[in-house]
């Protein structure tokens, strides 16, 4: 079988699996977030935490819960890293340096999982398990909660409230993320992903060389790292490490895990707003963008672009033999289209066009399908922009799902759309104009600019993947990227929840002959165009100085 045919067959298998779980998982998530009953374990949690689980929150209270919870997460994670040498299971690691600890704490709480540090030489098992892996669950749960709150904004009529953040976060963990992670971890263990608490083995190789074989609770962490679109690897090489990605089929399972929830959430949305066709339109936009990006990237990576790669004969630098080209591109595309940032190949060594595409995937705002929760709320905000654009064309007040979009609503949507590009471009500009910023580049010329641009794009979009040649574990990058990650996560959440509050308070306008149907192919095309145009106009100048210049050179 030719490599090309095999490559597309593995895509077909992946798509089949995603289609198969779309309905059951999407419907299940809708039930989780609309159900009235609390199970026994949850009631125990609510009692321990001291919240009234049946009390509804208005949007400012919902927002305050989300922000306070995240702030507490940052503080705990920072403390764990700074004190790890005094705690058990430190595996001989010393306290993490302050700027790195700040960066990592923000990184994991914001679902970014940017890693300035190398896992196997920085973090002991306790920090990995009780610190980082816990935030893998909680940051994904927060994303789900915010998305659900926005969906309730569309679904509810003249309501002052959006639900209860504590309940949403708890249920996201107990009914979705934890059960699925256990299942996934079992599969990963059977596939050869390590899971022990031994701290590793030292041995003499066949040639008599001493080699350290690392250990750790890898499978349990890998499962939620993918499922929660987190992406922070146990090891520096992330899912390319043989203990995180021991075989090609396991790597394909990992791609499935990171796409499963984001691609099922539109179904949840459709169910909750009482019109499943709206969910199909949303998933249609996501799937169309993803398919186009994958096709382009596969094509680009198959032709060894770039002088050094042409000399090698293929884009094999930074790729594992067992995965091969097509699976490497599939993983790279999926991880940057979601907010995952895990890698099974090194994006810094991609061909110029391939590197441009994975960068562009993140610049789309990670809405195809995006991170757990954040992808859905990102695309819904862009849907409002699309409806607004259509309304301008025909001179009607824009409406989406019966909600009228006035000046306030569009202001919030616009602020949401502008936040990330502002963070990316300002951050990159600051880095490029200081020696602290430019001193960390590994490659010279346009590729060096791409490394910095990639870092800020990854941070602002909460992705976490890297053009890893950039030496990002410096005070400048730790502090700057930490700030960008925090603002890139929480400013949009503020805008989304404020928007949700305004929408929930409205009634539903009746559908008339003049209403733009938002479930038809016309709207799918319009929304796709809006996503592409917003991105294209924003980033084209800087892209032409970086990857485009490199591709043409």
């Amino acid at each position, binding site marked *: 079988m030719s490599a090309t045919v095999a490559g597309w067959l593995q895509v077909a298998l992946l798509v089949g699996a995603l289609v198969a779980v779309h309905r059951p998982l999407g419907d299940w998530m809708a039930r989780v977030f609309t159900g009235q009953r609390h199970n026994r374990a949850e009631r125990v949690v609510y009692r321990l935490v001291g919240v009234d689980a049946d009390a509804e929150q208005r949007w400012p209270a919902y927002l305050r819960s989300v922000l306070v919870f995240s702030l507490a997460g940052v503080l705990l994670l920072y403390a764990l890293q700074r004190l790890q040498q005094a705690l058990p299971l430190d595996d001989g690691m010393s306290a993490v340096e302050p700027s790195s600890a700040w960066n990592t704490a923000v990184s994991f709480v914001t679902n970014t999982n940017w890693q300035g540090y190398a896992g*196997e030489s920085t973090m002991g098992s306790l920090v990995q398990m009780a610190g980082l892996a816990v935030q893998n669950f909680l940051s994904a749960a927060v994303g789900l909660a915010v998305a659900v709150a926005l969906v309730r904004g569309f679904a509810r009529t003249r309501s002052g409230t959006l639900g209860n953040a504590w309940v949403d976060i708890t249920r996201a963990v107990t009914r979705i993320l934890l059960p699925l992670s256990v299942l996934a971890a079992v599969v990963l263990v059977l596939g050869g992903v390590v899971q022990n608490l031994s701290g590793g083995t030292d041995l003499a190789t066949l040639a008599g060389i001493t080699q350290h074989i690392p250990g750790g609770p890898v499978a349990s962490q890998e499962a939620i790292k993918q499922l929660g679109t987190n992406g922070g690897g146990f090891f520096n090489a992330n899912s390319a490490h043989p203990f995180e990605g021991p075989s090609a089929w396991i790597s394909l399972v990992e791609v499935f895990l990171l796409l499963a929830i984001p691609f099922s959430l539109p179904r949840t949305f459709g169910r909750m707003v009482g019109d499943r066709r709206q969910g199909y339109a949303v998933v249609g936009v996501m799937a169309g963008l993803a398919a186009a990006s994958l096709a382009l990237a596969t094509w680009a990576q198959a032709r060894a672009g*770039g002088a050094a790669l042409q000399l090698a004969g293929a884009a094999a630098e930074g790729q594992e033999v067992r995965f091969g080209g097509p699976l490497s591109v599939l993983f790279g595309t999926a991880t940057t289209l979601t907010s995952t940032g895990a890698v099974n190949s090194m994006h810094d060594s991609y061909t110029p066009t391939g590197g441009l595409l994975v960068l562009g995937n993140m610049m789309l705002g990670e809405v195809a399908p995006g991170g757990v929760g954040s992808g859905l709320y990102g695309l819904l905000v862009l849907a409002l922009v699309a409806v607004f654009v259509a309304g301008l064309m025909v001179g009607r007040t824009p409406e989406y799902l019966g909600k009228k979009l006035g000046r306030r609503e569009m202001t919030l949507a616009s602020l949401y759309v502008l936040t990330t590009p502002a963070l990316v471009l300002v951050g990159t500009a600051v880095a490029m104009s200081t020696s602290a910023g430019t001193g960390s580049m590994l490659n010279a010329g346009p590729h060096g600019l791409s490394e910095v641009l990639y870092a800020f794009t990854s941070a602002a979009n909460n992705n976490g993947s890297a053009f890893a040649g950039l030496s990002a574990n410096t005070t400048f990058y730790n502090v700057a990227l930490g700030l960008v990650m925090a603002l890139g996560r929480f400013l949009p959440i503020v805008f989304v929840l404020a928007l949700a509050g305004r929408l929930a308070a409205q009634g539903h306008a009746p559908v008339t002959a003049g209403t733009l149907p938002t479930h038809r192919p016309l709207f799918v095309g319009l929304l796709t165009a809006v996503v592409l145009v917003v991105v294209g106009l924003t980033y084209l100048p800087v892209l032409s100085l970086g990857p485009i210049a490199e591709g043409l050179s």
Partner: protein
Amino acid sequence: MPALRSGRQLVAAVRLLLVATVVLGIGYPLAVTGFAQLVAPGRADGSLVSVDGEVVGSALVGQAFTDAAGDPLPQYFQSRPSASGYDGAASGGSNLGPNSPDLADLVAARRAAVAAFDGVDPGDVPPDAVTASASGLDPDISPAYAAIQVDRVAAARGVAPAVVRQLVDDATAGRDLGFVGAPHVRVLELNLALDRELGR
């Protein structure tokens, strides 16, 4: 009073965080560890491979087959170049860009070295032999890279190439399920088979 409400929220946040740390940070990984150690202890501990009771490596983690001076041992199939020198405590790739002059120099030097060592035409050296992997611990080489090493290994061990070629075939894995990933040759398994069948 918003300030008061925020204070109460903070208490709730810290408590939920502590509950989550116990359940998700300790309970969950320990439960998975228990399952793994019970059901698949070998895999959970890193698929270690032993010869005569001595652990010589992990079936999943690549290693260098070089002498003390770092020169390749002719009696063994060679792994790919590694950005970390097959250091198990420092995984990662080179991260050199597609137009990097450093990478171009490395590729040219590796091509010349492999061609000379294996006695083949430089044009026959496959891409994986001249590029570093993503992990720096790639346990596999392509069937093409194994093929150009057969004659050299056979000569070093004083056996017919056909004998070595048979062992290469035994250590070659196709795509998973027939279409996932890429065909690969497991280098440690192959070199262990050489030692076992033909003596060290």
